[in-house]
Structure formats: C-alpha cells, structure tokens
C-alpha cells in the first residue's frame, strides 16, 4: 500500500455495463495527491464524480487500485479518515441541522455528549447556529451546502473530499465556500473537484485535469502556467513611444504580427524567438532613447490551459 500520498490510484477504471452497452467512465487513471489542496478539474461528464465515488466506496472499482492514506479506498478504515461532501447533498427533510450532525457523528462512533461542543463550533463557524433547530428542508441551497460541509468535518477528517462544492450556489455562496475551504486547508488535506476554474485557481496549489475519463495533466498550477507560458509566443510591450516602435516592428520581416491593443494601449507582438525579440527591442530603445515601462508575456490562465488540453483531447 502506498502510504506517502493522501490519495493514490493505479490504473483506476470504471466501466458501466448497462443493457450490454459498455461505457468507460474512468479510464486507467493514475492519481497521486499530496497534502494541501488538490484541484480535480474536468468538463461535465469527465468522470470526476465517478472517481470520487470510487474513492469513498459508493461505487465499485472495475479495474485498478485506489488507496487513501495507506488504506484501501472504500474500506471502513479509509472512510474513518475522510470527510465527504457530494455534488448535490441530499438530507433527511424531517431532521434539523443539529439532529443531522448528531447522526453523522454517531455514524463515526462518536456519542452525542462527546460531539456537542464540536457541533456548536461548526454551527457557529458556518453561521448556522440561529437556524440549527429548523428542519433542513427549510434551508436555502447555500445553507444546505454548509450543513454538508459541517457533517463532512464532524470527525476531524484528515482528508476532505469535496465534489463540486459550489455548484448551484449564488456568487456570494460560492465565495463563502471558497473562503471556508481555504481556511480549512491549514488543518487537513483537501481534494476538491470543480469545473469553475477561477475557484480552483484561488484554492489549489496542485491540480489534476481529466477529460472523457482519462487523466490529461497533473501538476502544480504555477508549473503548468510556466510550462504553457514558455510555449506561448505573445509578448506585451509598453513604452513612452509605442507608435514609433510599432512602425519599426512592422518593418521587420521577422516579426509575425504586431499591433497596439485598443484595450490596454500596449504593443502586442507575436513572435517565435523570445531572445531575438529582446535584442531587437533593446537596440531600438537604446538608439532612440526610449523608456520601457513594461515588457512581459501575458500570464497564462488555467482556463486557457484547460480549454487547450480538453480541445486537444477531443480531437
């Protein structure tokens, strides 16, 4: 058993066989999740939920292995270490949040007397203490999501698995959940799936991208950005004489394309050779006594990488 990782999978596969039609939902995924917050990205239907459900033991593994903190995924020992929030958590409509949290604690073997203090802390933390005696059916979507998170935290888990925790929430609700998750990262590892890339960028340091059941990329977000920015051939230059430089660049037949963008009034240059471009611009500004305000490559957004990769996978 691999114990070095929070989550480790080897050739993890799920094939659904319905009426003799086989659908590969997860296709031989090798996943390694280290401590911290790890994002799990993929478009709708990519296999994120299926993978997470295999990790918690809700659905069977067709092929391969999955290990959570050295314990076989889906085993009672592994489930004792995790807290899980499904994509659309459904609660017992006739229970109050307080009763539900007691029940969740009991399922971990924790008695009411031992967990009361913890429940009070969680209800206060998620600002549910005033509503704790209302039945959950009367809660808004955001409040239900908070109850789900609170129940996932009831056992002080070492690993929190969150399946699209911000889906169906309004922008304020989404921001709150993102903030909660970031705070919780000090105390536990978090494996969070989403297709909202900006949230993943805010929360995570490392990310895995899957599409059509296959793993496409797994790495640190910054490293992914760096990798993709080196292959990016767009440069942005801002000086006190943009028009003059643009003229010079356009006259140079080695420059593919150059223009002043109407949005930022800076020169945008498309060029293959970064070093050659730097030499060219340096010489020109020195000769004409021009001041460079900025010269950089635009930051690659995770979204660009994601779209690029999933498009390639589509082909």
């Amino acid at each position, binding site marked *: 058993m691999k114990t070095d990782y929070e989550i480790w999978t080897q050739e993890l596969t799920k094939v659904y066989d319905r009426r003799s039609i086989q659908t590969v939902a997860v296709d031989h995924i090798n996943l390694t999740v280290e401590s911290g917050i790890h994002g799990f990205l993929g478009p709708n239907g990519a296999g994120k939920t299926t993978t997470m459900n295999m990790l918690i033991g809700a659905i069977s593994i067709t092929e391969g292995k999955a290990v959570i903190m050295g314990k076989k995924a889906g085993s009672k020992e592994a*489930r004792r270490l995790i807290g899980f929030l499904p994509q659309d958590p*459904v609660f017992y409509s006739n229970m109050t949040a307080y009763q539900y949290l007691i*029940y*969740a604690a009991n399922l971990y*073997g924790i008695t009411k007397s031992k967990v009361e203090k913890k429940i009070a802390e969680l209800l206060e933390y998620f600002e549910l203490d005033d509503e704790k005696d209302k039945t959950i059916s009367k809660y808004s979507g955001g409040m239900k999501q908070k109850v789900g998170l609170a129940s996932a935290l009831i056992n002080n888990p070492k690993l929190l698995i969150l399946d699209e925790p911000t889906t169906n929430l309004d922008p304020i609700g989404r921001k709150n959940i993102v903030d909660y998750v970031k705070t919780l990262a000090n105390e536990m590892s978090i494996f969070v799936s989403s297709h909202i890339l900006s949230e993943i960028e805010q929360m995570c340091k490392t990310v895995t991208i899957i599409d059509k059941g296959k793993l496409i990329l797994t790495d640190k977000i910054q490293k992914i950005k760096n990798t993709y920015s080196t292959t990016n051939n767009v440069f942005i230059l801002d000086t006190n004489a943009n028009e003059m430089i643009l003229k010079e660049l356009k006259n140079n037949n080695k420059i593919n394309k150059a223009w002043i963008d109407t949005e930022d009034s800076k020169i945008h240059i498309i060029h293959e050779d970064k070093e050659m471009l730097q030499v060219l611009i340096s010489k020109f500004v020195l000769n004409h006594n021009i001041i460079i305000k900025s010269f950089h490559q635009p930051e690659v957004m995770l979204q660009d990488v994601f779209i690029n990769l999933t498009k390639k996978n589509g082909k």
Partner: protein
Amino acid sequence: MLKKSNQSFYEKSIKPIWAVFKKSLYFDIYGRWKFIIALIAMSSISIMLLPIDPQTTDNIYSLNAYLGLGQVIFSYCVIFSFIMIHSSASLISEETKSGTMLLLISKPISRGEIVWGKYLALWIYGIVINLVSCAVICLVAIIKFPFNDIFSYFGTQILFSLVILFFYGTFTLGLSMILKNIKTIAMIPLLIIMITIFGAYIIRPALFYIIIDGRPFYEVFQIYHFDLGYHFVNIYAWFYETFVSPLPIEVIRGLRYFGLYTIYYDDDTLEEIITKMNFYSPQASLALVLILASIVIIIGFILYKKRDIN
C-alpha cells in the same frame, strides 16, 4: 478559524448500527399520528365490541367468535401486514432514490450494518405496536369474556403476529433493496394480502368447488404450494392447538375459507362432515414462509451490496 478539538473522537463509544437503528426508528418508521392510527386500527375489533353485551357466557366460544379469529384475520393478516409493508417499503429504497444513501455510505459503516440497523428498528416498532394493541384487546377480552386461559390465548396470538411481522417485514425490506420505486415495492406484498386474504372468501372456495376427476381443482393443481393464506392459518391452527386447546368448531368454520378444512353436509343426516386438508404440515408451512421471506431479503442484500450508489 475553525478550532481543532482536542477530544479523542476515535475512542469508539457508539456502534454505527445503533445510530442507524435510532434514526430509522424515530425519523423513518415512527410518527405520532401513524402510531396512534395503527393502534386504533389494530384494536378496532375490540373497541367495537366494548358497547356490545356478550350474547353468551360460554366464554371460550365468545372469545373465538368475537375476538379471536377476527383479530387473527383482520388485525394481524391485514392491518398489521399493512403497517409492516408501509413501514419497511421505503427504508432502503427511499434513501437510494433520494440520494441520502450516498452521504450515509461515505461514513464508516458497512451496508450490512445499515440493513441490520433498519431491520432491527422495524422489529422493535412492530413488537411495540403488537404488545400495546394486544394489551387493549386482552383488556376487553378480560372484561367481556373472562376465562382462565386468557394469557396463553393471547400469547399464541402474539406468537402468530411475530410470524406476520417476520414475513412482511423481511419480504418488503428485501424488495426495498431490489427495487427503487416505493409504490411497486408496496404493491407486491399488498397483492399477496389481497389475493390470499380478501380473495380467500371468493377465489379459494371456488377452486374447491370445481371438481376434476373427483378431486377439487385446488388440490389437483396443487395451488396450496403458492397459497400463503393457507400457510398462515395452518401455522395459526398449530400454535392454537399447541398452546390453548383443540380448535373450537367456530374457528374451524372460519378457517375452511383458507383451505385448511372442508365442511360437507351429509345428505341424509344433514350432519357436518369436517375434513382437515393435510397438504402441508404446519412446521413445513412455517419453514416455507420463513424461507420465502429470507430468500427475498438475501437476494435484496446481495444486490444492494453490489449496487453503485450515485
């Protein structure tokens, strides 16, 4: 910032099976009004008897005529069966269908523990309803038809009710693990009641009156193999004869509709000729009922254990 509690949570103090048991009993099965209505329905025969003067002081006759068979057929085979079906049909299927099962199985509890917790809650609820309603019936019986053997009489009835509890509780819970639609789950055991109990007064006698080669259709085509109504009364008659006394004639007259006895009248003397139909020994009937329900719950559990919960 969420404070990290210093409490040692992993020092186990409660078994998860008890958590499921308590939750199922208080939140899924028990409801104040459901409970009151169930008790009233179960005790309705005795409640109706309260204002009526017993017509005879022949206590064992009256007890059987007014309470005994009515309680067995109406209270146990119909009302109590309904209660068990209503209580168990949704226990697993509702959680699977609504999505609460996903949160439940993400906790460190096995699917076996989930089923046992719910099954235990069903039994406790059934036994409590039985004991309370039987106490009401027993009280009426003591007031109206006093006789010495009242406790063995009602003890037998409670014993029989446990067979009903086992059969309908187990059978329906098994279906609840196999199927998702609660209406379909409830419909199957309800049809069994409709055919074997209500149908008893029309279908079964008709099958006895159709004679093929000198023998009733019911016997020729061995309908009794599938006739749960026959098996239930066979078990009841066995309990009664073991713990109380030989079956009184008015009980036999009642049980002929269930194929346990046939009564013909002698053309000359007009005397009743009573014949016991020994299609099955009562022990075999009991085994058949228990095995049938057990098979359904075992198949249900195997399917539920393998099922992917999304």
